[in-house]
C-alpha cells in the first residue's frame, strides 16, 4: 500500500499546480535519484573478498548456501569494522569482521542466508528506490507551497508524507520478515538464524549499557548522580521503525521451527 500516498501526492500536485507542478516534481525526483545513486557509489571502501577473509570450512558453507539459493553470482565481502554488521547492495553482501568475533560459522551462514533473501526478493533494488521516494515525499510539501502559495496544499502534502512514512515502515518490516522466511527455508539448521539474532541483540544491549558508563574520577565510594542511568528519546521512538525488533523476528523463527518439526512428525506418521 506504499504506492497509495505516493499516487495521491502526484494527484495533489496535478490538482494544485497542473502540468507545471508535475514537471517540477519529476525533475525533483530525478535529482533525488541522481544524488542518491552518486552517494551510494564506492560504498565498500575497506572490503575484501570473503574467500580471503574466512577459513576454508566457512567458505565452503557459504558457497553451498549460494548454490542452494541459486545465487552463485552474488559476491560476499568482509568489511574492516569491529562493530558486527551485515548488509547487501546490488548483488553483494557485506559482513563486518566484528561479526566473526561474536558469531559461529552456522550463525554467519544464517546471516548470509538472510541477506540472500533480500537479494532474491529484489530488496536491493527496491530499498534504494523507497529511500529516494521518501526524500521526494518529504520535499514535496514545501515545494507545493512555493509553487502554489496554497497553505492547504502543503498541509495535505505533509499528511500524505506522514502516511507514506507509516506505509514505508510497514513495508520495510514485512521485507525483513520475508528475508527471514527465505533464510529459514535455505538453512540446514533454521534455528541458527535465531541464535544469530539472539547474539546480535545481546551485543547491542550490552554495548548500549557499556557506552552509558562514564569514567568516574577518584572518589570510589560516592555514587555520582551523573552516573545514574538516563533514558533518552531514541530515533526509533520519534520515527516509524524500519526493522522489526529482534524479539518479533525470533518469535516468528520459533513458530517456523515448531511448524517444520510438526510437519516432519506428520510425514513420519504417514
Amino acid at each position, binding site marked *: 500500500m506504499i504506492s497509495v500516498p505516493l499516487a495521491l501526492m502526484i494527484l495533489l500536485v496535478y490538482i494544485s499546480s497542473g502540468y507545471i507542478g508535475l514537471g517540477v516534481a519529476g525533475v525533483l525526483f530525478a535529482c533525488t535519484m541522481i544524488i542518491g545513486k552518486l552517494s551510494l557509489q564506492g560504498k565498500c571502501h575497506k572490503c*575484501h573478498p570473503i574467500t*580471503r*577473509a*574466512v*577459513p576454508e570450512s*566457512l567458505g565452503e558453507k557459504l558457497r553451498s548456501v549460494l548454490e542452494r539459493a541459486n545465487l552463485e553470482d552474488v559476491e560476499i565481502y*568482509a568489511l*574492516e569494522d*569491529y562493530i*558486527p554488521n551485515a548488509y547487501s547492495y546490488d548483488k553483494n553482501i557485506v559482513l563486518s*569482521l*566484528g561479526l*566473526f*568475533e*561474536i*558469531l559461529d560459522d552456522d550463525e554467519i551462514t544464517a546471516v548470509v542466508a538472510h541477506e540472500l533473501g533480500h537479494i532474491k526478493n529484489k530488496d536491493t533494488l527496491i530499498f534504494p528506490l523507497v529511500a529516494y521516494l521518501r526524500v521526494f515525499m518529504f520535499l514535496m510539501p514545501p515545494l507545493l507551497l512555493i509553487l502554489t502559495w496554497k497553505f492547504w496544499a502543503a498541509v495535505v502534502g505533509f499528511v500524505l508524507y506522514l502516511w507514506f512514512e507509516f506505509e514505508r515502515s510497514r513495508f520495510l518490516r514485512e521485507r525483513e520478515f520475508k528475508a527471514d522466511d527465505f533464510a529459514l527455508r535455505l538453512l540446514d539448521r533454521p534455528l541458527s538464524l535465531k541464535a544469530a539474532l539472539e*547474539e546480535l541483540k*545481546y*551485543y547491542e544491549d*550490552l*554495548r548500549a549499557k*557499556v557506552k552509558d558508563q562514564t*569514567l*568516574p*574520577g*577518584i572518589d*570510589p*565510594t560516592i555514587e555520582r548522580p551523573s552516573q545514574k542511568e538516563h533514558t533518552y528519546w531514541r530515533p526509533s521512538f520519534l520515527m516509524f521503525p524500519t526493522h522489526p525488533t529482534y524479539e518479533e523476528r525470533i518469535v516468528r523463527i520459533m513458530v517456523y521451527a515448531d511448524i517444520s518439526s510438526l510437519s516432519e512428525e506428520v510425514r513420519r506418521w504417514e
Partner: protein
Amino acid sequence: MEPQEFKLTEEGIKAVLPPLEAEIMEYMWKVRVATAGEVYDYMKTKHPEIRRSTVSILMNRLCERGLLSRSIDHGRGGMRYVYSITTTREEFEEKVVQRILDALMSNFREATYAYLSRIRKE
C-alpha cells in the same frame, strides 16, 4: 591509559579496572597478542556462562581505554582482528601509583607528605 578511578575495596588491578576487564588484561599481559576468540576460550574456563559478545565488547572497551590495540591479521585461517598490549603490567602499575599520588598531592599535600615521611621512617 590514565586510570581515573580507584576502588579501595578491590585487589590488584581490579582496583582500577572493572573485574572482567581486569581478568582480560591479566591474560593479555601473559600472552601479549591474542584474538577475541582466544580470549573467549580462556574466559570460558573461568566463567562458563560468558558470551562471545561480552568478550568482544570488553576487548574494544580496553582498546578505547588505550590498554590494547587492534590490528588485522591476514593469516592462513583468513582475516581477523588481533589485539596486542600497549603497555606492560609494570608500566601500567607505575602509572596508577603516579596518578594517585599526583591526585593526593594536589588535594591533600600536607597530609600526604606527613604520611609518606611517617611510613618511610617505619
